């Protein structure tokens, strides 16, 4: 290359490439010329040696060989080479543009940093939400063909100990529909104590029918899964470990297979280990067979009821709708007419993923949409920054145009700058997303916690790179096109200063600010509605006073605590020890903490023992088993009568304390005290009502108060229980005391969820709180960005009108007039933006409806509040440059120019 000329040191493009750029080499002609030259020269030489012309030409060809084959080879080679060179040429130009852009941006660190941060925030928020949406809704679950997996509602697993006729369709009935489903499996997530390690611990356990892994299409990594006979009630105890538990607890020892682990003091033979990152459902650490029929002993892993999910894999070619119809017919056959009427609107068959993601789908999509709006605001802001910068650079660009840079070249150069900015912003955004994904927490569906956690992976990186590029192009295109319009001769003629007085850019910039304000207002309305929902939720009486209360949960293994007496003694001992601790005033045991976020068992009850003619007159009541001090410990008010007596007396009739709602709904204004709660449920004597206490929200703050009844724990001490204490100690210290009390009674017992009661309640509203905080955060960012946008455009206007302001002041304009002049421009923009935003928010209000609680999506306060906030912010943003306008010195301003 160096042979053909000296290279320009400033331009890395080789000369021949630049030559090619002007005269694209004609490959065909060149090959033809070269070959013809050879043959003619050869023939001429031969002719000179005495051959006649035609003989010479023949000889020349013979010496050359197969001309057409050589020609073909050369053509294909040269064409390929030309493509290669052109590609390299384009890459060279792009690299050059980028290099130049970076050099230029380095010289404006303030501008660059600002833009990168603004874009980083926008892209970071969008990336975080995308990773959440991707994990929960888009990315295939780590199962085979997850689109063919359905969840079945309305099935049952028979209980070995149950008596009486079959009341529901059972798992085996669905399995019998072999033309519809290749597999039907069931699973239920729960918890058990791992008892044979140094520190006892609580494990997430899932009971599953042996064919669950086959149904999902996930193979066991080591050992084997469950055999069909291990799904029978009398089969040997076997277990499959998660990869995480195997590594953490058993040091990844391959010989674990065939050894025993003790769960709730029962030995289970480990038969397999699952592959890494498989923890389905929830974050399961150990799987056990769910037997058919199931037995009471299997209920140890759950609190009072088994939260079973049925999964079916559709047979090839079967439409979900036809399977649904057939299954619904089957299920209805077992239903009484009343139950049939109630379950009408429930779909029998739903895609598994929809069931697993549940209600969080809407929240995720709304939040992703919100980040999209934030990104748009950021984009508009950056566009405006680039516009003002482009106007500042106009003379430089005009000069370059005059020196022969093409328009495309200038546009490309400016776009390269915005793309470099956006890519840097994308980098910052991905860093933010790494942090943000960890904070998603309760936003993600818990049932997918182990199987599809949100994470920043290659897909997510591709997404953020793509949106960074798009943002860069979108934000840069307008300013670049605008700047390239500049008429070189005019701009160069006028002085540099008047080069910044261009008027046409002003309207574009105002338009973008109005758009920003409108978008920010939509987000502000959304966050307003969400905040009002949270507020109305927090305004709900929970029915308990959680302050100064601590709690822990535990499970008494059936093997070690086989009867009422042993369990009662354990609870009595723990309570006695807790109460002996200084600073503990009350302590109690309950089978189920309120507001724990999980639904619990409900019993059909009636006032008195006479069964009503109509099943509908029976109510469902939540059954709670407590020690007498429970109401005092949690601050539940006693409204009438008394609580149970502290001592257990098997001779006396069982006593029951009922909630206010139960009293109202079952006794309808009559005095419940002394009444009996029926039916007797196999107990010898139906319990007698001795007191009425205040309602407690059952499992979440959103669920309405419902009938609740409290039985003395002494009558039937449960295996699963929570222990609570109230006292003057700090709740965390209180929790520690409780843990010590349990350890003193039984050091091998695992306790879990050791926490202040306030945390339990916080957990109950965590998903809503997260939603609200995120959307509010996005709203705040958008409002801030819009404020910066307003400030930018007004400040620019002031700078442009310095001379005008100076003249006005010289002519006697007052301070207020000047401020009014400047601020009114801001107000016009704000009013316009706010109006458009209000209309758009109103049009989209249905999107948010299902996320709200206690407010309607057309809640006027949210709209008015958002409008007021934005107008205020806009006025403040306009006031700052207005103050600067006051500093204009009339004399100087007029002399300038």
């Amino acid at each position, binding site marked *: 290359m160096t*042979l053909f000329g000296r290279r320009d040191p400033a331009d890395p493009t080789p000369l021949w490439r630049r030559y090619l750029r002007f005269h694209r080499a004609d490959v065909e002609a060149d090959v033809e010329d070269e070959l013809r030259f050879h043959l003619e020269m050869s023939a001429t030489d031969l002719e000179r040696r005495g051959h006649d012309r035609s003989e010479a030409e023949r000889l020349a060809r013979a010496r050359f060989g197969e001309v057409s084959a050589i020609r073909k080879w*050369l053509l294909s080679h040269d064409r390929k080479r030309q493509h290669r060179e052109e590609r390299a040429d384009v890459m060279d130009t792009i690299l050059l543009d980028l290099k130049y852009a970076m050099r230029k941006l380095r010289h404006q660190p303030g501008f660059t940093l600002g833009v990168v941060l603004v874009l980083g925030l926008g892209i970071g928020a969008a990336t975080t939400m995308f990773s959440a949406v991707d994990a929960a809704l888009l990315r295939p679950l780590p199962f085979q063909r997850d689109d063919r997996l359905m969840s079945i509602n309305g099935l049952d697993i028979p209980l070995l100990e149950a008596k009486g006729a079959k009341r529901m369709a059972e798992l085996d009935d669905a399995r019998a529909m072999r033309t519809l489903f290749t597999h039907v499996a069931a699973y239920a997530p729960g918890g058990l104590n791992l008892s044979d390690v140094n520190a006892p611990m609580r494990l997430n356990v899932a009971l599953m029918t042996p064919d669950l892994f086959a149904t999902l299409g996930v193979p066991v990594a080591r050992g084997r899964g469950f055999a069909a006979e291990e799904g029978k009630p009398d089969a040997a105890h076997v277990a499959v470990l998660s990869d995480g538990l195997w590594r953490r607890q058993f040091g990844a020892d391959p010989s674990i297979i065939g050894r025993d682990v003790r769960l709730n003091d029962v030995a289970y033979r480990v038969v397999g280990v699952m592959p890494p990152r498989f923890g389905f459902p929830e974050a399961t650490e150990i799987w056990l067979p769910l037997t058919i029929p199931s037995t009471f002993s299997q209920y140890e892993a759950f609190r009072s009821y088994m939260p079973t999910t049925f999964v079916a894999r559709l047979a090839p070619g079967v439409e979900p709708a036809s399977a649904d119809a057939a299954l619904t017919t089957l299920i209805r056959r077992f239903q009484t007419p009343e139950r049939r009427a109630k379950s009408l609107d429930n779909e029998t068959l739903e895609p598994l993923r929809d069931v697993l993601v549940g209600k969080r789908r809407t929240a995720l999509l709304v939040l992703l949409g919100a980040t999209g709006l934030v990104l748009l605001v950021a984009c508009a802001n950056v566009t405006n920054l680039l516009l003002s910068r482009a106007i500042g650079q106009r003379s430089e660009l005009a000069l370059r145009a005059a020196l022969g840079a093409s328009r495309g070249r200038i546009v490309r150069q400016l776009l390269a700058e915005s793309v470099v900015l956006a890519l840097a912003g994308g980098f910052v955004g991905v860093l933010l997303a790494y942090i943000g994904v960890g904070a998603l927490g309760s936003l993600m569906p818990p049932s997918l916690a182990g199987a599809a956690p949100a994470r920043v992976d290659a897909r997510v990186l591709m997404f953020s790179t793509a949106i960074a590029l798009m943002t860069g192009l979108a934000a840069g295109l307008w300013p670049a096109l605008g700047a390239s319009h500049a008429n070189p001769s005019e701009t160069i003629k006028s002085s540099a200063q008047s080069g910044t007085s261009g008027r046409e850019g002003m309207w574009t910039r105002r338009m973008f600010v109005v758009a920003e304000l409108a978008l920010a207002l939509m987000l502000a309305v959304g966050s307003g509605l969400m905040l009002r929902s949270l507020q109305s939720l927090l305004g709900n009486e929970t029915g308990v006073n959680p302050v100064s209360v601590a709690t822990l949960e535990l499970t008494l293994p059936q093997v070690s605590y086989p009867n009422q007496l042993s369990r009662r003694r354990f609870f009595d001992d723990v309570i006695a020890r807790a109460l002996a601790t200084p600073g503990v005033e009350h302590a109690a045991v309950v089978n189920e903490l309120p507001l724990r976020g999980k639904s619990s068992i409900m019993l059909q009850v009636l006032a008195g023992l006479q069964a009503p003619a109509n099943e509908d007159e029976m109510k469902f009541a939540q059954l709670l088993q407590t020690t007498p001090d429970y109401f005092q410990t949690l601050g539940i008010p006693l409204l009438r009568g008394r609580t149970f007596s502290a001592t257990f007396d098997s001779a006396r009739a069982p006593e029951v304390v009922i909630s206010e709602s139960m009293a109202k709904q079952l006794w309808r204004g009559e005095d419940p005290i002394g009444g009996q709660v029926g039916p007797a449920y196999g107990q010898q004597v139906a319990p007698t009502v001795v007191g009425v206490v205040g309602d407690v929200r059952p499992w979440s703050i959103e669920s309405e108060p419902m009938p609740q009844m409290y039985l003395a724990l002494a009558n039937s001490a449960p295996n699963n229980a929570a222990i609570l204490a109230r006292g003057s100690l700090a709740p965390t210290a209180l929790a520690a005391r409780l843990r010590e009390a349990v350890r003193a009674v039984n050091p091998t017992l695992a306790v879990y969820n050791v926490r202040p009661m306030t945390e339990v309640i916080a957990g109950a509203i965590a998903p809503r709180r997260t939603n609200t905080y995120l959307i509010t955060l996005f709203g705040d960012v958008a409002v801030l960005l819009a404020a910066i946008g307003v400030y930018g455009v007004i400040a620019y206007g002031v700078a442009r009108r310095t001379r005008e302001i100076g003249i006005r002041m010289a002519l006697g304009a007052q301070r207020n007039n000047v401020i009014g002049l400047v601020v009114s421009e801001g107000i016009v923009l704000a009013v316009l933006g706010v109006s458009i935003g209000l209309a758009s928010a109103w049009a989209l209000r249905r999107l948010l409806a299902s996320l709200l609680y206690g407010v309607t999506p057309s809640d006027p306060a949210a709209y008015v509040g958002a409008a007021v906030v934005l107008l205020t912010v806009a006025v403040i943003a306009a006031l700052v440059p207005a103050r600067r306008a006051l500093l204009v010195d009339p004399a100087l301003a007029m002399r300038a120019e």
Partner: protein
Amino acid sequence: MARESGGMLQGTLGLLILKSLVVQEQHGYGIARWLQDVSGDVLQIEEGSLYPALRRLEDRGFISSKWAITDNNRRARYYALTRSGRQHLRTDASTWLQFSQAVTLVLRAEPSVL
């Protein structure tokens, strides 16, 4: 020796082409003539096969090409050695010489020595 370049030892033709360009740049036909003259017609090369060999040398950066006007006013593509081509020729030629000497030695050896 072999009539076809395909029968020549791998890379030999490239080496000969590079050698032909040591003194001055040359077009394809010129290279063919030079090879014929120097080898005294011992090396019969199918002339067409020069061109693929030239392209490969160019791809490897050992030679470069440009269009220029010949003495009798015709347009022709001239090839020239690049610096790396010169370097390559030096090392390859010495390898070749050592190799051919070794082969010669072996072929001349008395059978009894074997």
